[in-house]
């Protein structure tokens, strides 16, 4: 019903556009989105923006404080570590390894988990039942313990750390995807699609996944947060990367001896982890609200 009795000037937005405009209206989430973009760019171009080459151990002064503290200088903005390496460079490299690793893990887990979860939800019988019992058992084991076991099996290195963490997070993603698809399958529009003779691929593409945007965003955020925490925890325990390219957890572990004399060496990597997780969480929370609002319309 047109109110102005002329023609409709207001453009009717597609769901995607509408989600975007709702999301933009939330200023905190929008700021967080820029934070996410900056963080990802930092991770990708860490080697280019770093003030000194990552391995260049130009031994200047050891344990220099950050520039604003007494005794610091502008050459090394965040000071130097016990080997005289520029700490900002180390931190950027750490962010690259931790954040990049977590993003890779999230992508890999999402792709593999969606494939397995969707297959399990759409098939019946013995295959699905075996998968479920296996998942039940794997879900019981704490993820950190699974990652620890796998890394002991593979041998400690950064790549193995990533593989171990993604395998440890896979079962819970499969289970959650499976449950979401299962609850979608009972809805009437899916049954209607089925009666139309839609194939499974078509059912997933047009019926199920468009209606699962909100749980998928929540799930991916959960996986990402856990991945960051697990990579850094494994690194902290000494199962991650060796000394040259330290990720954030390993950075904390190597500098823990100087925690009283130069606390920033421990403080900054932890803050970096904290800020990464916080910004991503605020961003996905805003996204989730926007999606819910659009779905409620």
């Amino acid at each position: 019903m047109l109110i102005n009795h002329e023609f409709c000037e207001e453009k009717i937005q597609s769901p995607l556009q509408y989600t975007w405009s709702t999301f933009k209206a939330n200023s905190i989430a929008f700021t967080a989105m820029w934070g996410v973009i900056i963080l990802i760019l930092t991770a990708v171009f860490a080697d280019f923006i770093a003030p000194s080459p990552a391995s260049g151990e130009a031994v200047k002064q050891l344990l220099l404080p950050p520039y604003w503290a007494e005794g610091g200088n502008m050459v090394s903005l965040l000071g130097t570590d016990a080997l005289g390496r520029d700490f900002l460079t180390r931190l950027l490299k750490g962010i690259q390894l931790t954040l990049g690793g977590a993003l890779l893990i999230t992508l890999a887990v999402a792709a593999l988990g969606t494939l397995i979860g969707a297959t399990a939800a759409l098939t019946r019988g013995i295959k699905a039942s075996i998968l479920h019992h296996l998942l039940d058992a794997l879900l019981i084991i704490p993820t950190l313990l699974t990652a620890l076991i796998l890394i002991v099996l593979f041998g400690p290195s950064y790549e193995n750390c990533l593989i171990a963490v993604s395998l440890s997070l896979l079962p819970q993603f499969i289970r959650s995807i499976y449950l979401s698809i299962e609850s979608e399958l009972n809805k009437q529009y899916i049954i209607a699609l089925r009666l139309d003779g839609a194939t499974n691929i078509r059912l997933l593409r047009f019926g199920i996944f468009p209606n699962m945007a909100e749980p998928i965003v929540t799930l991916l955020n959960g996986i990402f947060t856990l991945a960051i925490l697990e990579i850094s925890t494994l690194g902290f325990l000494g199962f991650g990367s060796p000394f040259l390219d330290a990720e954030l957890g390993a950075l904390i572990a190597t500098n823990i001896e100087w925690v009283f004399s130069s606390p920033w060496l421990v403080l900054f990597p932890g803050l970096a982890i904290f800020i990464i997780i916080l910004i991503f969480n605020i961003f996905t929370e805003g996204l989730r609200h926007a999606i819910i609002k659009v779905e409620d319309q």
Partner: protein
Amino acid sequence: MLNYLLRRLNLLLITAFVLTLITFALSSWSADNATANTHYISHYLEYISAIVQGKWGLSAIDQQPILTKGLLAFAATLELCFIAFIIATVIAIPLGIVAGLNRNRSHDHIIMAIVLVGLALPVFWLAILSTMLPTLTGLVLPAGGSISAVFEIPSISGFLLIDTLLAADTYHLDAFFNRLAHLMLPAAVLSIFLTAEMTRLTRDSITVVMKSNYIKAAYTKGLSSTQIVITHVLKNALPSVIHQLRLKLSTIISFAMVIEIVFAMNGAGDWLLTSIKAGDYIALPTAVLLISGFILLTSIFIDILLMIISPVKRKSLYVD
């Protein structure tokens, strides 16, 4: 009800079976015996009978039975989790209720901001910072170790808090309070995550309950908010919080293990790390079996408990 119990028992048995398969593969890998190539089934049966008889093998470090060592370590972890859980419950439930009742108002926003921060803090980093706390602020709390070395506590139950109480005639309550003081900082660190998680769950659950018709009916009866919360809301909101918290059990235990490593306390994390670093790989399957077994039994126990205390869930059983 009987049907439900049988189904839980079935889940328990099958999951336990798959678990033992996993740990069997692990322990035969760690033993790397050349003979085990052909007779997997008979080896598995031997393994199971050894597990049932309690012969879990000997630790390669000091030739002690690995089961006793593992149980002792895990008991310490559970103690830490328990104290943290008590702290978190006392703080989180009221916060969650306030946030849930004032949804989308300023109280709610402040509490949820705190929750977001609590969930984003990396646990091991927080633990390191809090080990510095006593020296920096002059706080009189021990920041490392399980109990002062002056106390010699005979291990009776395995739980140090209970053992120190049992040894009260030698040390009065000094040993107990010493142990409690050693637990304070680690438990506080662990409870930050736990509080954030519980507050979020309580808030979500209360929001769902507040939308239901019986709450509206209670308001029209003229009950005050406090009366409604006590008589109607909590009863209906808590079961789902407990159910969700059950799923977080494994995360809580892993965090507790990391915290123990930082604080150099006796516990599953410390034990596992020293065992792995010393090449004592039999600790791995033992830890998996102990911790996962504990989580499995607890979750099934909580499931059944929820079914008993919550009439709504019980009613859903009649459907199938």
